């Protein structure tokens, strides 16, 4: 059986390393995942001592198990909005970490079963990446990364609060209630995905279409969230500056390419001004890309209309950030 004092001593020695690793991995994911045009919630925690002891004891009752078998002494949790984002995060994790083991819980479920369906990874840092190269003392530490959607997270938390486990012997009526609830979460995930996809392709509201196009790009450069209400209002105003639908549509069609062509420049502007975002609020909203696009392509339309709705000084700041070709 487990020697508790031995576990205590081992954990006292290892916990600070895992805590440090958690901070490093958390910061890395936060700064890199936005390159994939996502902004999920990311948390980490090191397992508390009592949980470790209880888990080892429980496992030891079933098989040979020791402190060293534990792969979730550090847990990283990534919570995304939509199911399709889990695939992107899967790609991100495989590209940036050594994945010792990946478990896709949904794949292991029979068609007639319902359960908590997230992706779990046993991972190590990749010291060949520049961000990790100085942490070679941490490279052998295995940690767990859980990836789930908001709905899966909600279900998991609720189930935890109810102390619910599938294998529990409950009255059929109660079990049925729980299954019905579980199916709702799964359905909700599917429906949210469908709605997300449909909205991305929705063309009737130009401001909304544009915002959805810009959102991921914004996450990539800014690495934080923005105020949607302000964005929709600003985008509607800016679009009203164009005299024809053709011009508006041209902007919608070309904005992706404009951002891609100017990626390095935009990244540099964001990196150079991180400590003065509060002075240049437009930099903290995705509509900044539209303004830069117009500075390049419709400078007079922008200049002639701007002062009716916004501060002249703000446009001057935006122009200065963008610069010009001599």
């Amino acid at each position, binding site marked *: 059986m487990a020697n508790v004092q031995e576990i205590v001593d081992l954990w006292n020695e290892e916990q600070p390393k895992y805590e440090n690793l958690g901070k490093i991995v958390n910061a890395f994911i936060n700064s890199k995942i936005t390159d994939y045009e996502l902004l999920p919630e990311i948390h980490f925690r090191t397992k508390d001592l009592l949980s470790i002891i209880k888990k080892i004891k429980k496992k030891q009752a079933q098989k040979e198990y020791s402190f060293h078998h534990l792969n979730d002494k550090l847990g990283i949790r990534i919570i995304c909005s939509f199911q399709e984002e889990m695939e992107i995060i899967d790609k991100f994790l495989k590209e940036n970490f050594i994945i010792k083991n990946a478990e896709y819980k949904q794949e292991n479920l029979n068609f007639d079963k319902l359960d908590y369906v997230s992706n779990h990874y046993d991972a190590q840092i990749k010291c060949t990446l520049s961000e990790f190269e100085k942490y070679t003392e941490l490279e052998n530490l295995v940690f767990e990364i859980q990836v789930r959607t908001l709905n899966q997270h909600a279900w998991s938390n609720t189930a935890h609060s109810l102390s619910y486990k599938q294998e529990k012997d409950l009255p059929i009526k109660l079990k049925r209630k729980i299954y019905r609830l579980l199916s709702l979460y799964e359905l909700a995930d599917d429906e949210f995905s469908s709605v997300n996809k449909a909205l991305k392709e929705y063309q009737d509201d130009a401001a909304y279409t544009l915002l959805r196009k810009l959102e991921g790009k914004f996450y990539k450069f800014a690495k934080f969230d923005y105020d949607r209400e302000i964005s929709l209002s600003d985008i509607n105003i800016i679009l009203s500056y164009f*005299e024809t639908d053709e011009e508006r549509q041209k902007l919608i069609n070309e904005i992706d390419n404009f951002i891609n062509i100017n990626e390095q*420049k935009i990244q*540099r*502007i964001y990196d150079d001004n991180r*400590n*003065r975002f509060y002075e240049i609020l437009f930099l903290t909203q995705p509509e900044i890309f539209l303004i830069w696009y117009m500075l390049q*392509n*419709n*400078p*007079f*339309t922008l200049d*002639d*209309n701007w002062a009716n709705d916004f501060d002249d000084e703000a446009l*001057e700041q935006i*122009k*200065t*950030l*963008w*610069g*010009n*070709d*001599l």
Partner: protein
Amino acid sequence: MAIKLDTSTITIEKIIVHSIPRHRKGDFTLEPQYSEQESSLPDGLRVFFKDKVVQSLGSNKELRVKYDGDSVSPVSTYISQIINSDGSDLIEQSKLITKYLFEIQDGQNASGIVVVIFGKINDKGTCIIIKLERDEGAQLELDPVTKSFNIRDVKDLMLTRKTKIYKVGLFIDKAKFKVNYDGSTADLQIDPKTKKVVTTWFIEKFLGCVPIENPKTTTKKFYDYTTTFIQSVEDPIKKAKYTQDFNSYLQKNSQKISAKEFADDYMETSDKDSYNKYLKEKKFRMSEFPKDNDYIENKIKTITMLFANDIAIIGKKGTFDKNVKLEPQKDGTTKAEIVSKVKSVR
């Protein structure tokens, strides 16, 4: 392939300030006050000066220049030395730049401040010279300990508008950029109420530069491209209006003109953007250049309006818009009305 000089990539690495007193020509009893050290530059001030340079060179006053082989100004040599030494010769060379400016100034010139910067543009060395004219009351004090001027005082002078005009020149090693110009300059008025005439003194006499292209050629290109653009405007009334306006614009009493100013003063917004796009395609810049109508004098003396029925109206400069009333008709034709005595028929 030429590398674009993108002002958003400017970084300021070193900065030094010297002060020039007002003095009479040939009166060398006074001397410039030189900094013996670079000024320290906190991040906030670095951003301020970068922004000022970017704004100046982003304005309509920006002009591409090249060193004039016939100029006696040695400033180009000092600038090259600063760039080639990667900024390590900034102190000595900037003092020589200031000394030369002091020597060529006379009592007409206000006292001034010279700010010389070594930095990077597109990751390649650049030397930026800012010359500020300051009011007599606006003093800078040399710190006796650091033997340098406090750059914060220069910022304060600019913000409190105690300097009325500032001029900026940004220079590069053109071989590294594979371009045919040595830099860009801009003459700015800090206080728009100041009506002082901005001269080419700073560019020509001090920096020893000339515009990249002969002003006669630039003016001719401007005329040709703009005329072609106006011809592409479908609405005949608008076309006639723009033609008359352009004719007046070219003949107005001004030493410098620009496509931007013409568009801003006379065109409708949507046409301005099309015009901008057209000139971009033609690689003609929107910013200011010195006007010289030599090559187009004959073309702008008269305006000819030819109708589909082979009737033409010819008007002399400035008289067309006053004497010919144009009116669009429902069927797409245009009615032209002239009320005057018949002078001759040929």
